């Protein structure tokens, strides 16, 4: 059995990246994710890796683009305002079908907002984010252990589907310390990177690009990108269910607030209320089928988020019109993180 460590979520993500074979990191300081570049600036040089503190988030994502074009595992991390700046590069990477991992320890907004736990960037993360109509895979850890495991998983998804992948946390997940079992890197058969630039080396010219000017070329490219998204939807959805088998009210929540909701659901069960929790782990692809089954079984859903209502739109789309979907949100800001008791009150209120 592996040893147990006691580390921060941000450190766990950095450790997961190293275990996954990432040796190239490019980033820019921003709260509440700076533990990630700090950890990697210390550890990567010991592994003959490269750490660059870039001049901007824009430069960092483009360094990632360049390294990734060479076929190596590479990563950047940031927080909401910095992620906004990276959207240009993420769009170009999606267009050029480049793998790469982006960790977003999101904070509150809009604008400079604050540094508190927030889920305000759900739309930005799962609906594309940059220009051009694309989707990237988005993973939402709810613990230090998942920060580690899902970061490793992100690298596999990125290589398998040739896409940027985002690990979306917040200051609760990034800053808290918990026990971590540093599991070995998962084994997944991945396609060879025959597209990566290397200097021709006697072979054919390789070009990594997102410009397609030929008649019909870009339309075909867009359909190909969409087909990859459909394939991820079919094969890569992850979710977790707690007490859903006989639930007549289903709570949906992800990430940090799902932990609080989990406690509230357990408290409701002690009161004899048949309540369950559905937690999407992949926000994109969204686990539509599993949620539809659980939601229709319960007949009623209470969606809880740290915003004014974003994932709830996908919840409604997934379960269809036969299921009543209510929403309870706490937009981010100091003092806005709900307590389990507060969520229990909401559960009681919506429990028929």
């Amino acid at each position, binding site marked *: 059995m592996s040893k147990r460590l006691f580390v921060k979520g941000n450190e766990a993500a950095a450790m997961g990246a190293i275990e996954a074979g990432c040796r*190239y990191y*490019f980033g820019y300081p921003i709260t509440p994710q700076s533990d990630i570049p700090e950890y990697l600036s210390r550890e990567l040089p010991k592994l003959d890796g*490269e750490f*660059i503190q*870039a*001049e*901007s988030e*824009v*430069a*960092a994502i*483009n*360094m*990632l*683009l*360049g*390294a*990734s*074009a*060479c*076929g*190596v595992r*590479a990563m950047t991390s940031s927080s909401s305002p910095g992620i906004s700046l990276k959207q*240009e*590069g993420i769009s*170009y990477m999606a267009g*050029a079908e480049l793998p790469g991992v982006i960790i977003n320890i999101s904070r509150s907004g809009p604008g400079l907002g604050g540094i508190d736990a927030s889920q305000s960037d759900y739309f930005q993360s799962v609906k594309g984010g940059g220009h051009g109509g694309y989707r990237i895979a988005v993973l939402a850890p709810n613990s230090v252990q998942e920060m580690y495991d899902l970061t490793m998983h992100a690298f596999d998804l990125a290589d398998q589907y040739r896409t940027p992948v985002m690990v979306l946390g917040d200051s609760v997940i990034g800053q808290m310390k918990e026990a971590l079992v540093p599991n070995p890197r998962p084994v997944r058969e991945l396609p060879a990177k025959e597209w990566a*630039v*290397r*200097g*021709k*080396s*006697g072979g054919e*010219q*390789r*070009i*990594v*690009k*997102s*410009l397609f000017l030929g008649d019909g070329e870009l339309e075909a490219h867009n359909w190909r990108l969409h087909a990859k998204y459909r394939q991820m939807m079919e094969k890569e959805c992850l979710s977790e269910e707690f007490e859903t088998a006989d639930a007549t009210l289903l709570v949906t929540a992800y990430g940090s607030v799902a932990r609080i909701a989990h406690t509230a659901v357990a408290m409701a069960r002690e009161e004899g209320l048949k309540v369950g929790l559905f937690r999407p782990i992949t926000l994109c692809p969204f686990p539509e089928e599993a949620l539809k089954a659980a939601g229709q079984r319960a007949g009623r859903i209470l969606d809880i988020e740290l915003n004014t209502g974003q994932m709830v739109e996908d919840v409604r789309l997934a379960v269809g019109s036969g299921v009543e979907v209510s929403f309870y949100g706490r937009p981010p800001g100091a003092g806005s993180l709900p307590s389990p008791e507060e969520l229990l009150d909401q559960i009681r209120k919506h429990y028929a």
Partner: protein
Amino acid sequence: MQQVFTRPESLKDVQTHFCPGCQHGTVHRLVAEALDQFGVQQKTIGVASVGCSVFLYGYFDIDVVEAPHGRAPAVATGVKRARPDSFVFTYQGDGDLAAIGTAEIIHAANRGEDITVIFVNNTTYGMTGGQMAPTTLVGQKTSTSPYGRNKAKDGAPIKMAEVLAQLGGVAYSARVAVNSPKNVLQAKKVIKRAFQFQAEGKGFSFVEVLSSCPTNWGMAPLAANERIGEEMIPYFPLGVFKDDPIAQD
């Protein structure tokens, strides 16, 4: 019969699609000759930028990564750090490098990245139709400076070769022109010198190439060529502003 003039190995046998009188072809050839001379075609990774310069991969027979507008030096940084044995150059225009990409070029240069930057300065945004560039000369009329560039409002044109020469990480910075056989020969020498720094792992090298854009200048190719000598070179002096093989020490 002995063949005395051939196409560089690093260039493809394709027809140009650039406008009549455009000098991208001349600059391409000089860069390709330098790659051939150092025997690095098979390990070269070019970084294309946004503008007419993006079509690099259509002409060069080398691996190429396409960068977002202005970001080529950051992309090249990622490439070179991931593949330190490769030979990496960016090929950028004036809007790309000296306006939207100012932060990226300054910092890649200042870090002393072991890459070469070829900067084609034609004092205008070519592909978008001749708008005012950061290098547009004072008084020059463009589609977005219809009354001429106004120094009081638009600032003076940026002299990138001189700016970059000030930075600690820069080993080599020079400006050349391709408006006459003599200047083309000099440009060839300078580009080779710049590549030599990279071949020897001695740091960041930069060559600014003054060239024409007859279409967007609204001039015939020969008249455009004359403008380089009469208007551009007096403001953008040719020369080597830094040649310091020990800049990295």
